[in-house]
């Protein structure tokens, strides 16, 4: 076991020394990978924040009907049931001021202290209308028009129309991110594959000699795979560092410009876990590229 570990240690040292033998190629490879991962990282960050905005808005509620102050509870209930009875409507929900306050507190989380002193009565009663998924787009608009005529209704907010537009946008962004992820995966694997292939050619006599003295296939190949993994991790780390710099210089401006839309009040960067995931992803791509090269060019 300790022998195995020592052999591994030696393999690691050789992997690193191997990289030092061609610093230019290595740097170019790492930078190219970094650019690829940076692109993917930027799109992912956009997607994460856009999803955050959309989630925060609760856009799955197509129609919200705000009622006048001091509407008797029976009238509110009656209207709720009448709307629910429409065939195009899936279901409705009456939101009392108490529930509204509770939701607001939940939504604000630790920032809930700003609500201190807010009286329950200051919030309006509202009816949330969930339409059938297959109901026509115009239905929401028509229903809103009719509801505005009802005496106890103060205002009707149609979220559905722009929510669906936003969802479409989000879908497009997801497609872009997915496609980009594929392209980046392919590009990074190709980059390590070609640099490791070069490394194998450059160190061919070393490979040959290790075979002669009884190096196992794994022992001979491992340094190259380690080299690929290091490339991947460095590429990802470099990309994330650049992205972090970009994010921290842009975020304040974005937050000011978008303050209306930002429910949580801030755009966010990747979590530590997500950063680790990205590094792992880089390492994995490096390992895959290196393994392909090594399987093809290091014979035993």
């Amino acid at each position: 076991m300790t022998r195995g570990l020592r052999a591994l240690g030696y393999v690691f040292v050789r992997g690193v020394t191997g990289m030092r033998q061609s610093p230019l190629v290595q740097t170019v490879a790492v930078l190219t990978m970094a650019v690829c991962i940076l692109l993917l990282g930027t799109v992912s960050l956009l997607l994460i924040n856009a999803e955050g905005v959309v989630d925060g808005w609760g856009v799955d509620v197509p129609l919200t009907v705000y009622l006048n102050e001091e509407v008797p509870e029976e009238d509110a209930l009656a209207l709720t049931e009448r709307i629910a009875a429409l065939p195009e409507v899936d279901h409705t929900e009456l939101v009392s001021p108490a529930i509204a306050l509770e939701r607001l507190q939940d939504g604000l989380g630790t920032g809930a202290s700003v609500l201190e002193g807010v009286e329950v009565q200051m919030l309006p009663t509202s009816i949330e209308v969930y339409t059938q998924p297959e109901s026509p787009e115009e239905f929401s608009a028509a229903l809103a028009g009719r509801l505005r005529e009802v005496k106890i209704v103060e205002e009707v907010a149609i979220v559905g129309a722009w929510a669906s537009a936003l969802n479409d946008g989000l879908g497009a962004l997801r497609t872009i991110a997915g496609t980009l992820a594929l392209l980046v995966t392919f590009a990074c694997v190709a980059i390590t594959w070609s640099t490791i292939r070069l490394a194998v050619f450059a160190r061919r006599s070393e490979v040959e000699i290790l075979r002669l003295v009884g190096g196992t296939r794994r022992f001979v190949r491992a340094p190259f795979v380690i080299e690929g993994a290091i490339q991947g991790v460095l590429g990802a780390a470099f990309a994330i560092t650049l992205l972090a710099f970009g994010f921290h210089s842009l975020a304040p401006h974005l937050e000011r410009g978008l303050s209306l839309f930002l429910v949580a009040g801030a755009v966010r960067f990747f979590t530590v876990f997500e950063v680790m995931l990205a590094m792992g992803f880089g390492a994995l791509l490096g390992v895959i590229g290196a393994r392909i090269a090594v399987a093809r060019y290091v014979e035993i």
Partner: protein
Amino acid sequence: MSILELIDVRKTFAAREGAQVALDGVSMSVERGEFALLMGPSGAGKSTMLKLILALERPDEGSIKVADRDVHRLTADSVPFLRRNLGAVFQDFRLLSEATPQENVGLPLRVVGVGTNEVRERSREVLLRMHLDPDLKRPVKTLSGGEQQRVALARALVTDPPVLLADEPTGNLDPDLSRDILDHLVEIQSRGTTVMLATHDPVVPSYVPVTRILHLDHGLLVRNEVTPRLRAISDRHDAAAAAAEVA
């Protein structure tokens, strides 16, 4: 019991002028503990035979056995373990040209995960036996041919392998040094290592107390000459085996 055995081995190399026959139906065996000489003119197939035993080349026909195991039926994963038991000196040395003598000699130990201190100790010790400065910090490529040859021999011996295959290990040495190295090989053999030495130096058989001389010519084994010393060797091994059985 034979430790090396070739049965009807044929090896050809593809060449532009047609197939080049390197070994043409060679059968022979070497017992444990022997000092066998492989002789013959240039191009006779000596190096090819050693490479086949090391599983560096595949035979077209026939089989090659090391300790009764067919080396060309081994899986790719077990070939390295075969090579760890066969110390080898190549005609062209095959050293890491940018590495120091000590790094080169330590390589077979590194491969099996021996710790740095032990690697240094053992490499130094064999280099000294080969009359080389063990602390030389120069890359091997700056060494003379004879010095490189001794580094190669040191690398083959550092693991104390049960079998030593040496391809012209004294080809680049002056007569004094050559005799010294041969004495060393004889000593190793006297301690139980099987030695197979390829050479076309006609002086070697008269100087070294060999057990067997194999003569190759144009890929044919033209003579397989056993000397009286072989009896002594096999008696010794039989006695050892008998003792082991009794115990």
